[in-house]
């Protein structure tokens, strides 16, 4: 190396080249990523969450309590640096523009950071190529344009720009270097603490080893061994001091975060994350979390391994390989063995991301060699200039294409619902004091966070699971309530708790963008109001208590609040100041003698023929191998599938609405036209066909011949109400070598008339009767309808407690009824629940129906079910301090004018005993003029003493058009499964706020009921039919 201060002409030329490449890289960031960001950030997973946090700080910089999610949470649960940057920019520009600008700044910082970091390992020109490789990195594209991870990019950019100071401090000392190192550590933590934590291990330790090597080279071996060791003492000591100060900075900068983590530890079930799965079993996740971020860089790994063990890049290479292994997730047991408990908390794709950054100095060195160094010379000599250009061009083209593909992947395979304009929803919440209650969104994806940022109204849901504190949410591993259907029944169980017990959370409005949830909304007592201008449906739960004026909140000490508001932005500001001062004083391209990068040594290469032979042989083998593989794939794809596979594929196609492929699996000799088959599919909507999601299937063959097989197929369908099994008889036919399904036909009953004429009663609960702005004039209110609860009992079945009874609307007006019950043991109230699907919430005057309230607990972290596979029949028993000996009921009603369709009749109802299980069956017939999309039948069973002993809800599986019909069947429990614990006395009942019920003559077991002859233990049954009449979904 030349003496300090003197550079060779070559070095100067290389420094200039490196700087030019850096400038090209920066321009590339602005043009490529900056050009895409305005269009892609709305399709990412995390962008809107960060925008919400930014909006939170914009509304209130100094108060870290955010009331709009989860009944309130502390923003000290996430490092605030980038969010405060967004908040600051919001004074100049809108929210989304502020996000784009901060993300772009992060990318520019990262580009410069990669260059400066690479300069510590390789010379300037390869470092420039490393910066260029960053621009074309598929992991950056994926992280920015698919995941929307702002703090990850920003914090790493800050961190990498601090590493040169770390290096210089260790090698040569100097308080300015120490101060700068600590400042950058503090600023990195302000943006994201995990980068500092893991960066310390993955980036700084290798750098420290490199620094110690530089110390050794700058201080050649002294005479004695002691002196040889002691020359490292001061650098080592400086490293330890730096580590201590960095840890201190990390703690101090976001001290309220650490305080929150310790005092409110995350008590929730680990959220499943695809990066922890086996990528061999889950190839789709492997693609997203491994193949795509690595992109073409994975082909460089052999080169990395070679350079790791043959050059001074050993520490860096080992870090790359460690991250590579950790990033494989659950594919091997190695990651779990290394990370232990952290495996289930961390998302492991971050290690793949860091690996793709750590590899960049190698990449830059390789590209430099290919273009301007020895590698290029070898290839040109062995294979010719044309092949050399193809290789180099191929690498750049591949990188560009993969990066572009990663950026536009969300438009090819959308990961979010279509964009939902939040303005109509925000306006709805602002009108008529609707924001006095909480709201929930369904089917918004991550856009829920963007909606949250547009309104001051509060939601029970949120988009940052680590901040969840409600037991109902922390103990179900559902990332958001509205993600419920993608996690099967446990997710829906969490959602159901909120919809059923809405009053406990002051939850009144649901904004639904996904019709999948319509059945559970309707049948747990929600009313569909209207469709907003953005296509979102508003659902309302009546008679919900509004939020109290003063809401409980966690008091955060003023010291913490000030620390949180001041320290992180100060750290970022100071780091920015140091950055610009360094840029102005020295620039980033200069060489310092303490830097000991890997320098390429010119060397003659003599075995050109050997290289050519090896490459040609390998190329030939690759072509033969690819051809053989392709031929095998072709042959396998042409093999006729067995009939079971055809059946499975058929129902899978229908489940995913792939109608043409499903049609192609029908017997070509006997199937009707595609339009006719589509018509049949479209006609048969309802609970299963329209709102069900296929979760499993089983099939049993019978009546086999060589060419015909009859099957009984059981389809398990997940609906928002429950899982249901549909049993179908299916026939497969062999034509030639291929199996097909015989087409099925609908029962083509005919609606008897061509024009229906019917007088119906319509209600309108007027509400505001005059054009006056007051929202709730007393003179406009209707007092509560007179209702009665009779024969209420506490029972137990299969270890589960339920309260049931008869509910009568004794008023002259239709009523919406809410019923709550509390379990009581020794006069101590334990658990309170509301009715769910087994209750007719909407009752006509003089109607009587059964109701049942089930008491269910919340999954505990100690439960095995929290860790294992999801069980669709999972029931969590409530945690009770003692077995209940009685219960209390509170019922209240308001006048209702909607969802009162009673046009469905039940023909031919039979009650039969099937292997000890009573089964109710019949034909549901729609005699009215509206389409009955989903029909619920509530059966209240009376025992031999004439008292209610059980209530069950059955659903008709298909929709019924006017004049059409559909069979129904549902099972009832055997009488001996039910134990009556207590009959609830009058003083346990509170109706419309009074414990004194009116002296009304209420129907008994003999009034309006059906006899249950031949069914042991039961005397009669009362049936109540209610219908969900919105247009059937297809």
């Amino acid at each position, binding site marked *: 190396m030349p003496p300090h201060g003197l550079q060779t002409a070559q070095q100067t030329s290389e420094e200039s080249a490196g700087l030019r490449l850096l400038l090209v890289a920066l321009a590339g960031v602005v043009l490529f990523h900056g050009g895409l960001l305005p269009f892609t950030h709305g399709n990412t997973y995390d962008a809107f969450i960060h925008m919400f946090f930014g909006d939170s700080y914009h509304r209130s910089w100094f108060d870290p309590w955010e009331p709009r999610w989860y009944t309130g949470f502390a923003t000290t649960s996430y490092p605030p640096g980038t969010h405060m940057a967004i908040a600051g920019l919001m004074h100049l520009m809108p929210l989304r523009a502020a996000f784009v600008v901060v993300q772009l700044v992060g990318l520019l910082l990262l580009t410069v950071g990669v260059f400066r970091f690479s300069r510590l390992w390789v010379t300037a020109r390869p470092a420039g190529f490393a910066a260029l490789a960053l621009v074309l990195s598929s992991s950056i594209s994926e992280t920015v344009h698919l995941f929307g991870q702002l703090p990850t990019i920003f914090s790493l950019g800050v961190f990498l720009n601090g590493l040169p100071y770390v290096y210089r401090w260790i090698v040569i000392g100097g308080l300015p270097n120490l101060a700068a190192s600590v400042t950058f550590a503090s600023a990195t933590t302000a943006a994201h603490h995990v980068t500092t934590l893991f960066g310390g291990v993955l980036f700084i330790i290798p750098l420290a080893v490199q620094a110690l090597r530089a110390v050794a080279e700058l201080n050649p071996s002294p005479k004695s061994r002691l002196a040889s060791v002691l020359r490292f003492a001061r650098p080592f000591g400086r490293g330890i001091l730096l580590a201590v100060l960095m840890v201190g900075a990390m703690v101090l900068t976001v001290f309220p975060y650490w305080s929150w983590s310790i005092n409110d530890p995350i008590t929730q079930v680990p959220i499943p994350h695809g990066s922890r799965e086996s990528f061999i079993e889950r190839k789709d996740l492997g693609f997203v979390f491994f193949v795509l971020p690595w992109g073409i860089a994975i082909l460089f790994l052999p080169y990395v391994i070679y350079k790791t063990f043959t050059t001074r890049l050993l520490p860096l290479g080992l870090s790359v390989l460690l991250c590579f292994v950790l990033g494989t997730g659950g594919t091997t047991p190695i990651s779990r063995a290394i990370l232990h408990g952290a495996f289930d908390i961390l998302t492991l794709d971050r290690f793949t991301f860091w690996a793709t950054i750590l590899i960049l100095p190698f990449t830059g060195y390789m590209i430099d060699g290919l273009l301007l160094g020895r590698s290029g010379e070898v290839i040109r000599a062995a294979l010719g200039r044309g092949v050399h250009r193809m290789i180099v061009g191929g690498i750049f083209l591949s990188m560009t294409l993969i990066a572009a593909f990663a950026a536009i992947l969300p438009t090819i395979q959308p990961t979010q619902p279509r964009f939902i304009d939040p303005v109509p929803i925000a306006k709805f919440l602002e009108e008529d004091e609707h924001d006095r209650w909480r709201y929930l969104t369904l089917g918004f994806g991550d856009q829920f966070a963007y909606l949250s940022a547009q309104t001051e109204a509060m939601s029970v849901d949120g988009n940052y699971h680590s901040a969840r504190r409600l037991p109902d949410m922390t103990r179900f591993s559902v990332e958001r309530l509205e993600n419920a259907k993608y996690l099967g029944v446990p997710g829906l169980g969490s959602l159901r708790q909120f919809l059923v017990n809405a009053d406990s959370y002051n939850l009144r409005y649901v904004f639904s963008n996904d019709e999948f949830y319509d059945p559970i909304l309707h049948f747990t007592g929600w009313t569909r109001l209207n469709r907003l201008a953005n296509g979102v449906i508003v659902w309302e739960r009546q008679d919900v208590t509004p939020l109290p004026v003063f809401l409980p909140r966690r008091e955060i000490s003023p010291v913490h609040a000030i620390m949180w508001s001041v320290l992180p932005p100060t750290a970022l500001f100071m780091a920015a100041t140091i950055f610009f001062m360094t840029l102005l004083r020295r620039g980033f391209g200069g060489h310092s003698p303490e830097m000991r990068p890997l320098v390429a040594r010119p060397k003659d290469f003599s075995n050109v023929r050997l290289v050519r032979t090896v490459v040609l042989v390998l190329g030939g083998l690759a072509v033969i191998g690819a051809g053989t593989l392709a031929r095998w794939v072709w042959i396998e794809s042409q093999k006729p599938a067995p009939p079971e596979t055809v059946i499975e594929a058929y129902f899978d196609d229908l489940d995913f609405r792939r109608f043409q492929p499903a049609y192609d699996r029908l017997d070509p000799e006997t199937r009707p036209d595609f339009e006719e088959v589509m018509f049949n599919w479209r006609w048969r909507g309802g609970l299963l066909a329209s709102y069900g999601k296929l979760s499993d299937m089983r099939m049993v063959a019978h009546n086999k011949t060589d060419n015909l097989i009859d099957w009984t197929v059981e389809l398990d369908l997940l609906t928002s109400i429950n899982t249901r099994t549909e049993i179908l*008889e299916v026939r497969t036919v062999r034509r030639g070598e291929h199996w097909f399904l015989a087409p099925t036909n609908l029962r083509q009953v*005919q609606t008897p008339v061509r024009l229906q004429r019917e007088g119906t*009663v319509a209600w309108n609960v007027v509400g505001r009767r005059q054009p006056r702005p007051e929202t709730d004039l007393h003179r406009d209110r209707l007092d509560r309808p007179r209702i009665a609860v009779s024969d209420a009992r506490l029972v137990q079945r299969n270890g589960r407690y339920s309260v049931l009874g008869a509910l009568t609307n004794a008023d002259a*007006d239709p009523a919406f009824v809410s019923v709550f019950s509390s379990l009581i043991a020794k006069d101590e109230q334990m658990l309170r629940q509301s009715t769910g699907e087994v209750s007719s919430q909407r009752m*006509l005057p003089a109607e009587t129906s059964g109701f049942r309230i089930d008491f269910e607990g919340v999954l505990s972290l100690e439960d095995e079910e929290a860790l294992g596979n999801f069980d669709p029949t999972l029931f969590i028993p409530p945690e009770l301090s003692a077995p209940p000996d009685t219960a209390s009921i509170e019922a209240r009603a308001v006048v209702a004018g909607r969802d009162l369709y009673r046009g469905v009749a039940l*023909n031919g109802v039979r009650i039969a005993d099937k292997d000890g299980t009573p089964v109710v069956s019949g034909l549901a017939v729609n005699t009215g003029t509206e389409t009955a999309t989903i029909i619920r039948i509530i059966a209240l069973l009376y025992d031999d003493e004439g008292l209610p002993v059980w209530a069950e809800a059955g659903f008709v599986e298909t929709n019924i058009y006017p*004049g059409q019909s559909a069979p129904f069947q549902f099972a009832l429990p055997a009488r001996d499964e039910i134990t009556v614990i207590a009959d609830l006395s009058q003083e346990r009942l509170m109706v419309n706020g009074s414990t004194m019920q009116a002296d009304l003559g209420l129907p008994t077991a003999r009034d*309006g009921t059906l006899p249950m002859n031949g069914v042991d233990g039961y005397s009669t049954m009362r049936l109540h039919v209610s219908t969900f009449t919105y247009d059937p979904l297809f």
Partner: protein
Amino acid sequence: MKLLSPIALVLLANNAHAGDFVSDGFGLVPATAISEQRAAWAGLIVRPDGEIQQPPEDAETVLIFVGPKSLVAGVDDGHAVTLNFDRHGNFVADDLPVDFRLGPQRVTDPETRYGIGDVLFRPDPSAGVFLTGATIQERQSARATYRVTADLESIKLQNQPVEGQLSFETFATLSTAPLTDKFGNVANDGVSAKMTITHGDGAFTVLTPVVSDGSAQSKLLTRDIPDGGAMTTTLGLVASAATDLPVQPLGDLVPAELRLWAIPEIEAVAFRAGPILTDAGHLLNDGASVKVTVQGASGASATADGWLLDGTFQTFLTLDPKDGPFEVEFSTPLGTYHKRQSLRAAPGGMALEGAE
């Protein structure tokens, strides 16, 4: 003069900020600066503990509330309440007479207590919506309403007889006689009852009629019910007598034509039945449930069920075509046909369909 401190002025005004200022004919004075003498000029009564009471003035605002909204004729009493305020928003004095107009009734006895006037009243047992109002010291309230509804427990429930016989696959309107209570009031529109038809084979049909124009009505679609039955209507505790519902039976005109033929390419046997003609002059209805069982000479049998379409039914069965002749049993709502049959030629327009 003695300054009173602190002085709290108790006001029940709509918009005033009580306790800040006292306004009287002499001007506006901060309440903390007022003296006993000045308080007396303003008509304020000073108490030794420092509270000042404003004596009530004449009524200015009268708010009326009448409930419950629905009173059952001859059963429920209503309660009418007025809240009476002076110009300051204070309640008026006691013992002021309140003149209530409650529909056709007029009640002038009540007097105010603590500013509130109220009366319990038994409305006339005639159903309807009635206007109410109240007057105190020549100040009137806004109008309010209450409603009297029929006493459902005193209704005599009777079904309207069904004329003639019901046909299959048709709508039949079932209704009750007009539902009037003992006062002659008609049940409100929207009141719900329950109609239960008990069939001869032990099955039931359940309908939910809703009162419209005084009688409970529902529609019955005569589908998949084996025969008529006896209909009972229930409304609360009141039940009607059973009414017969005869359904006209159908018979077949000629025995159904049954045909079997081979499908050699899949080694199966196809079956077709129909057209099924009835003695009512039309084909048996689409959607009528049918079932066929075919047994070959070797004893192997196959069964299929489904529905008629355009009077016919066809399917194919997992039987060896060489296993004839075949015993065919074919069931429809009209009856069961038995036939011994050999394979014949395929009819034109063959379409093989499975059953849903």
